[in-house]
């Protein structure tokens, strides 16, 4: 943990120094390329006024709602795929068709179907995350060493008991990798969708905030919001996923 903080800190300081040098050199107009001090001040102001916190909170709420829905759907659909070969084939085709389709391309449809509310954004998040998660989960299930299955059957497990007690934990490295991919895709889909919704006049979210600040020519505000996105990303990747990995697959000596 300390090690990773050190590693990150060195690079972050380096980037800030480079940035500040570029900003002070006067090559770029200060309006478009504000100094770190101005960005820092805007960031602190935004946090103090609650604007950044509220918008980040709204974005995180949407992402959690979307991911929970995705997780439930993934477990249900992947379990069905393990129990029925026909359904497995169907799901395989569904993933092949839907996975290459960017979530944002479905946004016009989502707006028509669900309106410009939260439902549309959650729909886009679920679409962005569901297919890679299913792909990973089913791959994980299929690569479970046959011996775990046999051990389970040997002590009297079958059907959904076998899936939940043996297949899910045995495939956990893949599930976690799927969740990581899902998380980063959800984050992108969310910001993109919020930006489009900003133009449609719906309040809330970091994407919308960035869009609004650009409109007001508050470039340091745009950078402050980008900083929030980066900070949340690092916290989730290093802290949350790092902790989950250490407590599960690293402790168990498993890896994907």
């Amino acid at each position, binding site marked *: 943990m300390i090690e990773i903080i050190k590693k990150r800190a060195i690079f972050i300081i380096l980037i800030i120094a480079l940035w500040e040098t570029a900003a002070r050199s006067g090559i770029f107009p200060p309006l478009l390329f504000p100094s770190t001090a101005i960005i820092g001040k805007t960031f602190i102001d935004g946090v103090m006024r609650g604007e950044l916190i509220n918008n980040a909170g709204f974005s995180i709420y949407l992402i959690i709602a979307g991911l929970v829905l995705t997780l439930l759907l993934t477990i249900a659909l992947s379990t069905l795929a393990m129990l029925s070969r026909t359904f497995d084939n169907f799901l395989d085709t569904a993933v092949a068709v839907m996975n290459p389709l960017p979530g944002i391309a479905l946004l016009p449809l989502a707006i028509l179907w669900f309106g410009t509310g939260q439902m549309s954004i959650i729909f886009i998040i679920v679409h962005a995350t569901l297919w890679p998660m299913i792909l990973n989960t089913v791959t994980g299930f299929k690569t479970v*060493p046959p011996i775990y299955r*046999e051990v389970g*059957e*040997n*002590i009297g497990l079958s059907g959904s*008991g076998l899936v939940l*007690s043996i297949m899910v934990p*045995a495939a*956990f490295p893949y599930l976690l990798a799927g969740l990581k991919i899902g998380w980063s895709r959800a984050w992108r889909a969310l910001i993109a969708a919020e930006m489009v919704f900003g133009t449609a006049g719906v309040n809330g979210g970091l994407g919308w905030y960035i869009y609004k600040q650009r409109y007001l020519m508050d470039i340091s505000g745009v950078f402050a919001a980008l900083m929030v996105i980066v900070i949340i990303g690092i916290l989730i990747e290093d802290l949350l996923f790092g902790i989950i990995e250490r407590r599960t697959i690293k402790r168990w*000596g498993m890896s994907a």
Partner: protein
Amino acid sequence: MITIVRALQVVNVNKTFFNQNQQIIALDNLNFDLEEGDLFCILGPSGCGKTTLLRCIAGFEQVTAGEIMVGSQAVTGPGPDRTMVFQGFDQLLPWKTVLENVEFPLKVSKVPAKAERRESAKQILSVVGLGDFMNSYPHELSGGMKQRVAIARALAVRPKVLLMDEPFASLDAQTRTALQTELINIWEKFNITIIFITHNIQEAIILGNRIAVMSQRPGMIKKIIENNLERPRFVGCPGFDEMWKELHALIDYKGF
């Protein structure tokens, strides 16, 4: 008048595999009985079908013809009355501690009280000498320790027959000898019925009270030898050499 209880009966068992229109007879008309408390060794060269036979008894494979009876019940699929100890070191569930691995079959078998399951698992683990490693994860154990845990797990549900598929074949010579001695102790202590597969003549002599020699292609029982050598047995103990020569002459090593 003593009525002999048959723990296991193998009646006219045939097993045929089909491989690209080619018919491979793995087991050809096998017949034998196990009495309760038998330690029955099946000895044969690799590829003779001894593992296939054990997998049929475990219920992982269906017999092509014939019948396998445990007590008065015909085998139709895997079940906890016939628990298996596999050869590989990867048979423990890596996401469970040693104690949880041994408790797990008890949980599946609906032993209701957690305290009772725990107590029972702890007791068996101390019998196999792993009382101090109950909270370790499998990847932290040596090969010999893993096989001990696997034996403890298989014993936990008190199976009618314990199936052992060359469980000591991947161990170094010293550990193997130690575990053979321990298996004899367990067998005497728990008074269980064991089928033990091996390709090692020495191991068969030291363990078995009966030794079935299998021939290959097709797999048939060539002869069943009563082994009444006095225990504890060791290489060179009275009668060992004669029996070794007899068994060696029976095994055909054609093609190996």
